[in-house]
């Protein structure tokens, strides 16, 4: 592990050096830590790339972003936030990509009284808002929000029994819990729950067990291209029921790896995924397209990724809150400003962002409601908006 650490430190130092020229006249400092390497790299890379699109001037003040990689490693994420707060005296921290590392970071955020906006999904990060969570906000939709959307769709598609196959980690655990609650509230029974790991090369055993339980529908709770493995196996073994995915599958690489096997799968996603197809009446359409246009102007057509959208939304939150915090008269770089910024984040009201409309409050640090989700089905290898589900 020593080799990995020192390699990462070097990377971190290199990232820091790259950011140095910005320091000259910058006033507001934003520390960003993402998982640009390691198991969650597929989330961290678009998030990191999005930082380059965030506003460099807010409320008349220059904004400096300091980006570090935590390699999907909890210890490294904590080291990064320690560095941000102790050496760089940042005003706000954005990140990191995954829940366990974000949870560990929230203690440091509270201890140093620095507001932090996580781009990890789990509701545990901000619920309930007390103790260290007073300083933590997050931009991705809660799993419960997505699970209830799935349960509604299942009712409409007359699914009575549900099979589950998910990651054998916090993501799968969280989803199993939320989906069970949401499904049982609608009278749907979860009849089998299987697990697999991200690097697995075969899920034959799990899929056979699921097929033996004969569920009407199966939910695959995984993220990124690994979702294709159970999907393909289910199709190849002749499963005829409905196959559902979580918003973790909302990634164009999934369609590339999955090919024809992914046709017909149904998932809840942020409005960003199908922004162009949304009716103009959708409140999130304009703000979602703003991100798509900004990202594709820099990285090429078709490159937008919903994970990057979470970082963009974190940028929109500080863009909205910083002018309010500056009005209190506190100077950036001081504890007073950080406290003012935290209070200002709680006052975010009806802010349109790429994944929905944010309404923060002293009791809600996630802020998204039903406008932060749409149902999507893959039709002929394309994400297709399903207004009727």
């Amino acid at each position, binding site marked *: 592990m020593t080799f990995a650490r020192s*390699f990462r430190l070097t990377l971190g130092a290199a990232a820091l050096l790259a950011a140095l020229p910005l320091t000259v006249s910058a006033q507001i400092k934003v520390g960003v830590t993402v998982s640009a390497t390691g198991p969650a*790299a597929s989330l961290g890379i678009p998030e990191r790339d999005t930082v380059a699109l965030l506003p460099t001037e807010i409320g008349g003040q220059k904004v400096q972003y300091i980006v570090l990689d935590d390699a999907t490693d909890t210890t490294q994420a904590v080291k990064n936030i320690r560095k941000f707060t102790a050496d760089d005296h940042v005003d706000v921290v954005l990140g990191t990509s995954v829940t366990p590392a974000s949870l560990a970071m929230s203690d440091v955020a509270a201890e140093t009284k620095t507001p932090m906006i996580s781009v990890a999904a789990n509701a545990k990060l901000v619920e309930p808002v007390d103790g260290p969570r007073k300083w933590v906000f997050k931009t991705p939709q809660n799993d419960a929000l997505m699970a209830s959307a799935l349960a509604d769709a299942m009712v409409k598609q007359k699914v009575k029994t549900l099979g589950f196959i998910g990651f*054998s980690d916090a993501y799968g655990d969280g989803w199993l819990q939320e989906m069970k609650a949401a499904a049982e509230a609608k009278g749907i029974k979860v009849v089998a729950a299987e697990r697999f790991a991200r690097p697995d090369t*075969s899920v034959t055993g799990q899929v056979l067990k699921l097929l033996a339980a004969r569920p009407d529908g199966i939910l695959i709770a995984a993220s990124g291209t690994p979702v294709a493995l159970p999907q393909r196996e289910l199709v190849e073994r002749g499963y005829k029921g409905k196959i559902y995915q979580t918003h973790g599958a909302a990634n164009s690489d999934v369609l590339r790896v999955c090919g024809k096997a992914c046709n017909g799968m149904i998932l809840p996603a942020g409005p960003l995924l199908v922004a162009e197809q949304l009716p103009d009446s959708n409140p999130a359409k304009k703000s979602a397209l703003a991100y798509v246009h900004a990202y594709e102007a820099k990285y090429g057509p078709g490159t937008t990724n919903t994970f990057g959208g979470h970082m963009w939304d974190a940028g929109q939150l500080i863009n909205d809150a910083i002018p309010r915090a500056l009005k209190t008269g506190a100077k950036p770089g001081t504890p007073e400003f950080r406290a003012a910024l935290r209070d200002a984040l709680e006052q975010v009201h009806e802010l349109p962002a790429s994944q929905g409309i944010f309404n923060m409050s002293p009791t809600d640090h996630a802020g998204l409601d039903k406008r932060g989700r749409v149902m999507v089905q893959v039709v002929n290898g394309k994400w297709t908006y399903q207004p009727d589900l």
Partner: protein
Amino acid sequence: MDLTIALILLQDGILNGAIYALLGLALVLVFLVTRVIFIPQGEFVTFGALSLAFLANGRVPGTAYLLLLLGVLTCLVEAVSAWRTHQWRGYGRTLAWALILPLALLALAPMAAAPGVPLALRVLFALALVIPLGPMIYRLVYQPVEQASVLVLLIISVAVHFALTGLGLLFFGAEGWRTPALVEGTVQIGPVAWTAQTFAVLGTCVVLIAALWLFFGRTLYGRALRATAVNRRGARLVGISTRVAGGLTFTLAAAIGALSGMLIAAITTIYYDTGFLIGLKGFVAAIFGGLISYPAAAAGALFVGVLEAFSSFWASPFKEAIVFTLIIPVLLWRSLGSVQLDEED
């Protein structure tokens, strides 16, 4: 569980086991000849699979540049050692395989990635890209420390593993890739459908094991490698170069790894970091053979594969735990049964 399910699981287990067997054999081979516990073996699997996937998707894989970079470094290192010993004889050969070959491959890469190239040609091209990485890594990393202890060599292997994984992320990105099937079609045997690709994997596995057996039993180079494995100093005394043996071993290891990768990339998604876990299971298999026995390693690999398939059916959340816990009783049994030897000779 009925018979059909058991048969399907058995099929799945044998398929995975065949790949573990190949990697286990490569690990045993490398350890015997060079005493290196070669953790990056799995990286050859991913590099092979992903290079082929990139070619199939019309892109030049980053391995082409890595090959050139390592080739240039190899030439420089060889030049320094030749200059020191005033032995320039044989330097032409180094230039040929470490500089001209990578340059030629890099120049040809866009053609291999062009649409319409048959898959078989792409497989050969991807093999040509990955296999020379083996001897280059040996020359650059392991040869300078060939007298070091097993522990130092192991630590170096960990470093090489992390370096290669990082490069893999750089070259291929974080998301996975698949390749088209090498052979199409399915065959129905009893209640279970077997895809032709499965037979390709098993067939290649059997052919490779047979080829290795012939190579070690019948050829001069093979016998020289065996001699090095039995007694390094003795082999050197009778004029076998342990360096040549080392280079040859790493070439074989890279070839086996890259080929295994291409075989399974049509069956499952391969990520830049998949290789580690596959390699680790190959390692568990190699431990069965105490890192010295090829047949025991192959049998161990099949056992690991089948155990994995059945535990994924019965207790999927604990699958990895079950497979890796297996190493403890095996180590206990081996440590009770074996006689302690000194490390060298």
